[in-house]
């Protein structure tokens, strides 16, 4: 519909420079430039390398997005930008860019929460989100369970990882197995040929005593250590490491905990919709297991297609469009980049 807000979204919280354009719930453009290859040899994202790449990429990525959508910046109703959480220097490039665009085009700017944007992006695929819903966000930087009662004004954090993020565990285990960075897709690929029941790896924070204090929290550090010990014992014994089995068993343990806790959150709160987002949501086993388990309880799982799960500008635009439609006041031009922006703040 032409009267739905046309919103541009900018994302630079980590190593992806994203510019997306949406009209309401319709995705018009999703342009992305990634510096992931520049980080690969360091085995993780180097903040300064990411920030430099954002500065180089922002103008050409914006050009591509506008061309893809067939609009000019004069047509845009509002500009949304990830203002946090994320890498401070990387966020700052996107926030300053959004302000530059907003100033020059005389448009309002919304500084938005990256995690809320991961939830909002699903509206581009599956339409308006029923509220309340439970959202599980799993990536290299975050692992959170949220109660989404009002996406425009605030979400309630239920739990989060107490050590490593889920995606971080994938990266570290990939490194142990000699697989490239980022580890997620490589573990997923290896696991297809492996036996998920080959090795019984631990499920963090699922014992009754842990559940009392950490019902919706995650811990992947113990799992990562268990995999490391298992692999190193094999290597010390001079035996080959069954990479596919280790990958499948590790992935099974992660997905088991994630889906169990997410569905527990749905059932405990009487909620029939689970949204999954973040880079780890692209994991094929996680998607399959979540859907299989949810079906038993009549819960609907919404997972956007993999390209929308990882960081991108479209998710920021989607949240921006939601805020505009809800009549939320735009941010001020002095809006800061906040690397620790709390989940309860959807827009600044």
């Amino acid at each position, binding site marked *: 519909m032409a009267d739905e807000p046309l919103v541009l979204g900018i994302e630079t919280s980590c190593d992806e420079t994203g510019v997306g354009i949406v009209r309401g719930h319709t995705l018009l453009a999703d342009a992305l430039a990634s510096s992931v290859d520049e980080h690969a040899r360091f085995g993780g994202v180097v903040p300064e390398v990411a920030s430099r790449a954002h500065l180089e990429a*922002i103008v050409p990525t914006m050009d591509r997005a506008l061309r893809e959508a067939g609009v000019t910046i004069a047509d845009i109703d509002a500009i949304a930008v990830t203002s946090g959480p994320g890498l401070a*220097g990387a966020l700052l490039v996107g926030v*300053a860019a959004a302000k530059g665009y907003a*100033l020059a085009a005389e448009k309002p700017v919304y500084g938005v929460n990256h995690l809320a944007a991961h939830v909002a992006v699903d509206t581009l695929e599956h339409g308006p989100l029923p509220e309340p819903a439970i959202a599980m966000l799993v990536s290299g930087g975050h692992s959170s369970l949220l109660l989404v009662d009002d996406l425009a004004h605030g979400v309630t954090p239920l739990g989060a990882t107490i050590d490593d993020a889920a995606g971080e565990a994938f990266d570290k285990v990939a490194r142990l197995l000699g697989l490239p960075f980022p580890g997620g897709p490589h573990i997923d690929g290896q696991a297809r040929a492996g036996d998920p029941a080959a090795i019984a790896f631990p499920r963090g924070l699922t014992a009754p005593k842990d559940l009392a204090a950490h019902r919706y929290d995650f811990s992947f550090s113990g799992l990562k250590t268990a995999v490391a*010990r298992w692999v190193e014992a094999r290597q010390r014994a001079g035996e080959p490491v069954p990479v596919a089995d280790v990958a499948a068993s590790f992935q099974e343990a992660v997905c088991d905990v994630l889906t169990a806790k997410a569905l527990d959150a749905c059932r405990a709160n009487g909620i029939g919709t689970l949204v999954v987002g973040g880079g780890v949501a692209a994991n094929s086993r996680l998607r399959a297991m979540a859907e299989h388990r949810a079906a038993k309880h009549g819960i609907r799982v919404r997972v956007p297609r993999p390209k929308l799960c990882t960081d991108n500008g479209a998710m920021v635009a989607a949240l921006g469009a939601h805020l505009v439609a809800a009549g939320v006041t735009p941010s001020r031009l002095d809006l800061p980049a906040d690397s620790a922006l709390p989940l309860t703040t959807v827009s600044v």
Partner: protein
Amino acid sequence: MLVLVVDSSTPAVTAALVEVSAGGVAARAQRCTVDARAHGELLAPQVEAVLAEGDVRPGDLAAIVAGLGPGPFTGLRVGLVTAATMGQVLGVPTYGVCSLDGIGHPAAAGEPVLAATDARRREVYWAVYDGAGQRIGGPEVAVPALVAERARELAVTAAVGDGAHRYADVLGLPLRAEPRYPDATALAVLAAERIRAGAPGEVLTPLYLRRPDAVASATRKPVLP
């Protein structure tokens, strides 16, 4: 021609509106705030303020000039991305000028002068200018003691800029009080020929002078603590 000037290469966050004519460059409005930690918050409102004070819409701008640094990276990028994005929307050329030139050029008065800004980590960004304000050394980043040596070799008789004040004892040169930070009008003056000629704009590439802090691991790091 109305031109916007931005510089965020030092603790001073600067936005200025200047008018470039055949006769020269005249300042119309300027905002400068010294706060090393708030470049991202300060610059855009200052741009808005100088446009408002000059009673100018963004679309009235004919060009944008930005200080390319050198400067601490995070703050420096704020000015450059602001200039680049505004230039993209407005379809006007963007011109980069070495930020140290905005200190050294206006400070030149017949004899060589050293311009220095704070590079943190006990180093300075520096350049040397001849008596007419032409850069004859730098821009580089170095410890003040080394800069003092280079300044002697280039027959420098005075030092200027925030970094020169900070390390005055090591540099051992008479100080000029102004400019302490890159002067917006001076940056516009240094780009004026290109502006008047309508020269093609350039991609604003920061003068980082330092590599990112990142060491590629030669061997795999053990995952176990």
